[in-house]
């Protein structure tokens, strides 16, 4: 069934159209500086705002968020049973366009992660672009290897995930 998702991964740069202008501008700047989509996604979720500034608000940033997003995206696009119903709905939305489909996927995952789609969308889009370039199957296999390696510390991580 997941192969029906493959049209989502054709012409991956179109996925950036899902971003509002204020996010697109920063993402484009970072991509044009030579950073990979995954690097930019990670920066988007882990940068604690302007540098050398102590925030005067009530909550501090959680840095484990990026890995959780990768886990949820893997479940979503790599045939995991947890997102079976949502994946069916996503497939029905792919025909409506990548922006609609990406928005749906982001909203579902944001709910699981306890955050807002407004924050998550650029990171999801950038990771999907990365998946598109590697190929969905290859990305899913690499993720599976990473999980196996993390359970067995004697095994090195696969090269694709080190990049």
């Amino acid at each position, binding site marked *: 069934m997941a192969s029906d998702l493959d049209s989502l991964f054709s012409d991956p740069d179109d996925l950036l159209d899902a971003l509002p202008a204020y996010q697109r501008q920063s993402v484009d700047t970072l991509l044009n500086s030579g950073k990979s989509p995954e690097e930019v996604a990670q920066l988007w979720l882990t*940068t*604690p705002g302007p540098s050398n500034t102590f925030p005067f608000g009530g909550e501090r940033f959680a840095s484990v968020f990026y890995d959780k997003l990768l886990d949820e995206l893997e479940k979503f696009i790599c045939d995991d049973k947890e997102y079976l119903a949502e994946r069916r709905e996503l497939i029905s939305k792919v025909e409506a366009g990548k922006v609609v489909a990406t928005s749906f996927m982001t909203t579902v995952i944001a709910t699981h992660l306890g955050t807002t789609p407004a924050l998550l969308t650029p990171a999801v889009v950038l990771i999907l672009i990365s998946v598109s370039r590697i190929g969905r199957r290859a990305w899913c296999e690499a993720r599976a290897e990473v999980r196996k390696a993390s359970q067995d510390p004697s095994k090195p991580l696969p090269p694709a995930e080190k990049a």
Partner: protein
Amino acid sequence: MAVNPLFQLAPQFVLTVGRTSPEGLKLLGSAFFVAPGKLATTKHVTGADQTNLVLVFPRNDTLLTYEDTSNTQVRFIPTKITAVDPLRDICILEISTGAPRYHITGTDDVAPGDPVVTFGFPHSDTGRLVLTLQNADVGARILIDAAGIKSKHIVMNTQARPGQSGGPVFTADASRVVAMVIGSYAPGGGGGISLGGIDPATLHQTTHAISAEYIKGML
């Protein structure tokens, strides 16, 4: 000197962001109206998590009324996040009421030496809910980097405390909001030493505020 008539009405456009839980209401920071039904605060105030996120209204309608600090009754309504820019530390919230009575511009409108006026809820992390006006001068215009994205900020010659993040910075004539308070200068982002819950690295008059022009782009 009399307080500017618009500033007297600050409780009607500067609110507190909070989060409800079974233990009660936790106050997180400040927010202010930037468009009909929309308010700006910092991303770090909300954590980009809209679970049980609320906006708390000040108890008085004007700044001239004495705030009863023993009063623990508050009125709040749920809110949701409509836009987030983590690199510039900005978050836009939505509710069904309210509108600004001023223009949102940017830090190009103020120069070093110009007087500015800020509003916020200092010490709200301890539960104190007192909307407080602070007069300050612009000390510097600076660009601050975040992951390779540089943004316009001003340094204000005033000391800020937890709870003031997300507060508006007005021109002295009350006509424009030029910036939003985000925190204080602290090498490496602070967090090294804590004395009684206070980081000594933050005890100085070098408060950072990001240009409001970036807020306009998120509405």
